[in-house]
């Protein structure tokens, strides 16, 4: 059975009309109206809470200093939903552990959430996009070294139950690690990380981590999933479909036009989320020198933007992409329930299967009523057919 997860970035889209060259990092918070923001938070939480009735799991994330994502602390909506929901699972994809000063605090937050939710937490650890470096003021040159040390420390903290232990690493130093509560799930909640390349898929596969492949499309995704399966086998691990997740933007409607209109509004996520002043897109050390060199030379586009293409090889500009091209590229599944099912099934077969569909069912300008209808129609018309997948 393939699992579906509803993902929203809790966008603050009312500010978008006033933004142009950057939606992130340097935009002044006077453009944020807390009264409108409060209404939006409650609305997005209502949409997630509805998922408990619809049988759709919940996915949060976090970004900083941006109008594309007002969820700056991924565990806050999870904390609210841990009590408001009773059945579905809660995934944060996730926690930027190389940018957070204190991995012990991360272990405590996830453990407490796991206990309150009675074992419904899935914990994502993310490298973070390059433009998170400046808001966190974290060193980009040793980011992944810090990421893996934090990962190892968090898991050790969650799985050690015999009193304090000492950790004197390269980046983190604690003489007495002893977290309470310990997690509800044993030995610890499942670990996820987002992955955008075969290289990082191999890193995750060697450790048995679930990968969330975010909107990489028809062309790039098979190579990423393939690298994961291959490396898992080399390490003697079984790569089940439930180690593989794919995120698509989904618009379901009673008519094809209605589904496409909803998808078009959700696509505002793709059109805005990568728009950032270029000096924040390539902090030194974030990628290997050979790749960084091309960016310095003046071909400064993000790796992601250059990678997206339709299945016949036409490059896609995320800032201007339309629904038809996005469907063709495997970024969007949209239309009637039959359309969405056919597109999902074709993508599933093309990439060799996966066990989690991360459904961006909200993104920016789509209204609450349309979002509720989108999620409800997906739940009633598409979800039942997914029993045959994975």
């Amino acid at each position, binding site marked *: 059975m393939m699992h579906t997860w509803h993902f929203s970035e809790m966008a603050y889209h009312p500010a978008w009309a006033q933004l142009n060259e950057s939606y992130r990092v*340097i935009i002044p918070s006077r453009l944020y109206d807390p009264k409108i923001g409060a209404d939006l938070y409650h609305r997005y939480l209502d949409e997630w809470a509805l998922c408990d009735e619809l049988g759709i799991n919940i996915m949060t994330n976090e970004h900083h200093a941006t109008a594309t994502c007002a969820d700056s602390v991924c565990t806050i909506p999870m904390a609210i939903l841990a009590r408001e929901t009773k059945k579905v699972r809660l995934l944060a994809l996730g926690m930027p552990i190389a940018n957070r000063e204190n991995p012990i605090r991360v272990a405590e937050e996830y453990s407490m959430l796991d206990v309150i939710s009675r074992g419904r937490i899935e914990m994502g650890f993310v490298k973070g996009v390059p433009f998170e470096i*400046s808001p966190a*003021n*974290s*060193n*980009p*040159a*040793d980011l992944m070294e810090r990421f893996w040390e934090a990962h190892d420390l968090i898991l050790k903290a969650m799985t050690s139950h015999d009193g304090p232990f000492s950790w004197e690493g390269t980046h983190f130093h604690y003489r007495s690690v002893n977290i309470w509560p310990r997690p509800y799930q044993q030995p610890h909640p499942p670990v996820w990380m987002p992955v955008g390349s075969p290289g990082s898929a191999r890193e995750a596969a060697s450790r048995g981590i679930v990968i969330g492949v975010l909107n990489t499309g028809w062309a790039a995704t098979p190579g990423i999933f393939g690298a994961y399966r291959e490396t898992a086998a080399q390490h003697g691990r079984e790569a089940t479909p439930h180690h593989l997740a794919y995120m698509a933007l989904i618009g379901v409607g009673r008519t094809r036009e209605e589904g496409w209109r909803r998808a078009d509004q959700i696509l505002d996520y793709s059109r805005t989320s990568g728009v950032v*002043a*270029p*000096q*924040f897109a390539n*902090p*030194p*050390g974030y990628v290997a*020198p*050979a790749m*960084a*060199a*091309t960016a*310095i*030379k*003046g071909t*400064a586009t993000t790796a992601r933007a250059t990678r997206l293409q339709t299945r016949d090889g036409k490059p896609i500009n995320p800032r201007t992409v339309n629904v038809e091209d996005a469907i063709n590229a495997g970024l969007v599944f949209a239309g009637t329930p039959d359309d969405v099912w056919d597109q999902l099934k074709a993508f599933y077969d093309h990439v060799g299967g996966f066990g989690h569909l991360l459904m961006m069912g909200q993104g920016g300008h789509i209204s609450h009523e349309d979002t509720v209808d989108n999620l409800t129609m997906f739940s009633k018309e598409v979800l039942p057919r997914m029993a045959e997948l994975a």
Partner: protein
Amino acid sequence: MERIDVDGISIEALVHGAGRPLLYLHGIDHFAPQVPFLHRLGDHFRVVAPRHPGFGKTARPAWMRNVSDIAYLYLDLLDRLGLEDTILVGSSFGGWVALEMAVRANARLGGLVLIDTLGLKFGGRDDVEITDIYALPADEAVARTFADPAKAPNYATYDDAAMEEVARDREAAVLYGWRPYMHNPGLRHWLHRVKMPSLVIWGEQDRIVAPSYGAHLTQRLQNARFLPVTNAGHYPMIEQPERVATAIEAFARENAR
């Protein structure tokens, strides 16, 4: 470029000329455009210009992540080469390394030259003394770095290997200097230990670190003179190589043993 082994680390270094030893410590990036200046210094000095660990083609041991580590490495380098009465010259980030050396040991040093150096914090917590170049658009970073932006390196003429070297330089500078940003909060409290003759050279149009910072540093040193250079930004040795070389030669003559 040559290779010098110190403490098991293979340092890539430009070694050129003959005369009194001069150890030259380069800044964040723009190494290639400084090579003509280093050759010019070779007229009167035996110039040794190492590429810092992680920069250029010098590998960085994984444990090495502090500027003080580089300082100890170069103090060992002076011992290894047996250099005496050395003129120590540091530009920008390399000036920070030079200061970390000079407050620790001075036996092999005969004079200190700092060119638009980084490494110090004099002001309060809200004062920005060293511009955050990583938060600037590329063209504005160039405009603040060079008095004449036409003197900035033209990367269109760089091949892939040269570009990758620039990327490695930037990555390494960030590794050592990201936070606290390009300074050691305690270093200013040890400046009294620098008693040797010192020359503080500053580009008058430096808008990465203002000349007032250099003038203040000069006052905090025991035996220092401040030399502003007109029509120069953060890298006067690129924009005014002859004037900077002449000033260093004069400083060395005045302070001959």
